[in-house]
């Protein structure tokens, strides 16, 4: 028998050898993938996101454009073979600009969504686990934060200083962690009363261990689902802020900024300046939400179609 007990290949977590295909983790992920793929909308969402990532990050290789210098001889051209989506008011190729702006939108959205999830997870887990007046105080902070519209804070901050991409990520992250913190707190409240946490506490395990080894791993489904929705929200928020002209500054842009720039053209029939970035935002946000739904199905323990 001891031949089975080879030294662990995964030090730190698994003290024993990696499980072969028929044990431990194997059934879970496979089943989760099957559940996820059963949700057609979620699969479609995933495809959309992958396509957009390719479009924005690999697209410029196939369709290189100059998005820095203005080309005043080529302004406001309608879509043609040379400029598939036409050009904007300063002569940037609109298709190239969609890729260029999409990079910022997707990057800021993903980063800000993840940042918000991390902050919210830590805050919520700490509040839920501590309980009592600490929980009450921490959650009143969250309530207060939710009472102030995120957009308002964004506008105030943007009016004071002009954030770069990094600054935008931090600001968006700091205003949108509130909802995930509530979700994680609720999850923690039930998890901390599981018998395995009681057992750990009874034999003298620390709070840190209870949170990091038991509560957070078991809330991973909540956290991941919350993260996808946060990303979608963050992309929308970036679009709002940039639309109002307070996001990334020219010559850099994002989809929201493109919408804003195209607005002046709305009455002159230049649809190619509004429709593409608008559709892109809608598609990406819907796609992330669909993925979130699919992940929820995949993680659902009792779930059955």
């Amino acid at each position, binding site marked *: 028998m001891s031949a089975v007990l080879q030294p662990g290949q995964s030090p730190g977590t698994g*003290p*024993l050898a990696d499980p072969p295909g028929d044990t431990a983790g194997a*059934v*879970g992920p496979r089943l989760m993938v099957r559940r996820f793929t059963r949700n057609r909308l979620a699969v479609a969402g995933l495809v959309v996101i992958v396509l957009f990532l390719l479009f924005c990050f690999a697209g410029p290789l196939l369709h290189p454009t100059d998005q820095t210098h203005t080309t005043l001889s080529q302004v406001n051209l309608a879509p043609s073979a040379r400029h598939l989506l036409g050009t904007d008011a300063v002569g940037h190729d609109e298709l190239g600009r969609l890729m260029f702006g999409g990079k910022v939108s997707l990057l800021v959205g993903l980063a800000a969504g993840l940042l918000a999830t991390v902050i919210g997870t830590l805050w919520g887990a700490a509040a839920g686990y501590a309980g009592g007046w600490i929980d009450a105080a921490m959650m009143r902070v969250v309530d207060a934060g939710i009472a102030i519209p995120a957009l308002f804070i964004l506008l105030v901050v943007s009016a004071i200083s002009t954030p770069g991409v990094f600054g935008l990520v931090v600001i968006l992250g700091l205003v949108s962690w509130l909802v995930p913190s509530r979700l994680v707190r609720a999850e923690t409240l039930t998890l901390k009363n599981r*018998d395995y946490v*009681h*057992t750990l506490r009874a*034999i*003298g395990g620390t709070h840190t261990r209870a949170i990091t080894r038991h509560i957070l791993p078991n809330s991973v489904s909540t956290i991941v689902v919350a993260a996808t929705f946060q990303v979608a929200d963050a992309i929308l928020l970036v679009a709002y802020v940039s639309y109002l002209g307070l996001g990334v500054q020219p010559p850099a842009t994002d989809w929201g900024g493109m919408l804003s720039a195209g607005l002046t053209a709305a009455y002159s029939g230049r649809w190619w300046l509004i429709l593409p970035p608008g559709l892109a935002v809608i598609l990406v946000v819907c796609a992330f939400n669909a993925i979130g739904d699919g992940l929820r199905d995949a993680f659902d323990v009792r779930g059955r179609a």
Partner: protein
Amino acid sequence: MTAIGHSPGAAPEPILELDGLDVTFGTETGDVPAVRGVSLHVRPGETLALVGESGSGKSTVALAAIGLLPGNARATGRASVAGTDVVTAPESVLAGLRGRTVSMVFQEPATALDPLTRIGAQIAEVVRNHRSVTAREAHRTAVGLLRRVGIPDPERRASDFPFELSGGQRQRVVIAMAIANDPDLLIADEPTTALDVTVQAEILDLLRGLAAETGTGVLLVTHNMGVVADFADRVAVMLQGEIVETGPVEDVLLRPVHAYTRRLLAAVPRLTVAEQPPGQAAPALDGSGSGSGGSGSDSGQEDGPRSAPASTSAPAAATAPADEPATDVPAVDSPVVDLRDVRVVFGRGARAVRALDGVSLAVRAGETVGLVGESGSGKSTAARVALGLIRPTGGTVALFGSELRRTRARDRHALRSGIGVVLQDPVASLDARMSVAECVAEPLRVHRRGMPAKERQELVAGVLERVRLPRAFARRAPRELSGGQRQRVSLARALVLEPRLLVADEPTSALDVSVQETVLEVITELQGELGFACLFVSHDLAVVQHFAERVVVMRDGRVEEEGSTAATLLRPTTDYTRRLLAAVPVPDPVLQRRRRTERRAALAADGSGAGA
């Protein structure tokens, strides 16, 4: 026993008849056959008990009989209720059948009732579903039904919400709903499993009375052989989806034919009852003869703790539990855990609940103390205080001789390494995201931080073998294990540090009897090897009688009675313990019938029959 004979020939038409019933569940991982070729029948006025362990398909049969199988189930064969085949009948026909011809009593009264609707209205709704009566008439019927099921002051209670009722009263309301339209067939799926024994006895009395009164056929689904002995006329034993044995209750329980039935019955812990006059041989308590405990001393309270399961010991003063050494434990005087005058109050002000009120109890080295009581008696709270999970409002808790409140955090941490814990729920006890090895190794990671991985693996593998699990289980995920295996993993985790005290809070109450037997055997065996003390919390008096040397009976947050198990559970000195013992159904229909009569007589003698 209902007054229905099993006279062959003159039997009336069966109200329920299953013929070659098959049920298969389509799941994500393929088809799972749950019921295979089950044939049985229930005649009016007769009670058929369907017994089996978890997963045997007994509940699926019950659901199939009322046409309530979940959507992923496919049933074939015939299941006719009063002549209607529920397997093929359309939903509209079934809806007319349910609640009128056949109705169901579910296990959990807390979830069977709508928490936001007054109980009178809930019963009236069932009445109006099937009869065109005015709201006022329906309400009157509801009040009448509440009276029939023994709810005191039904006119007033009809406007109560479910949360204002006790568990037993809620189950009475559920039964009232089930009998509201005088069904011909009542299906009761573990109707008393969620209830305390004394309440269980009352509910069984009620069901028995109602069935006899109206000639209703009853299909009783249960795992409890005592309940079967108490209530059923005939028994069908299920194993893996098939019926392996059917017959009159006395034949099946006293003279089982099938090997599985015999094994099942052998695994049932039997309460040894001593108050019988000689002539009726009580089932023997294994190891310690039933006579020794009774003759040990005149008053059971004076028996001191024992360390070997089979011997009675020198008397010790029960009031001063700390000053008498146990007989053959080497020179350990002070108890491993000592609760003195512990009070626990939850909440504040007028809504404060006294969970523990001046509880003192001690467990000495190597000794097993059974902590028994009904739900709400505070037994689990007491165990959690001993574990340091609940901080007492008053009194002192000493662990291994150090008073917890006076020790520094670091010392307290070290003390904790001497405790092992096994809790009730086999599912919630193990973190589903860890492997078995990680679960078992957790105490090592808490208390033996520097231990090399190799050594840890060896220790984990070794302790897994000790609890009779293969070493290879280390790599499995908890969800791949059965309930009994999970509890043994919990036990392995509890024992990996070789603790001096094991606190087990209902470690087997979620398990089947045969599995329970194995788990208790493993604990006993390891206790012999490792010599740890054990605080064993249980509601099951029969298990405690077999397992513990000393017993502490709790009631309403106080210690009602304590003493050696043999003495206390054979000759209880308090009425409460006596009532508790009398309510435990024994899996012997003849003996149980007599116990029931005696219990009723005793209750009647008390003057006031205790309301549920």
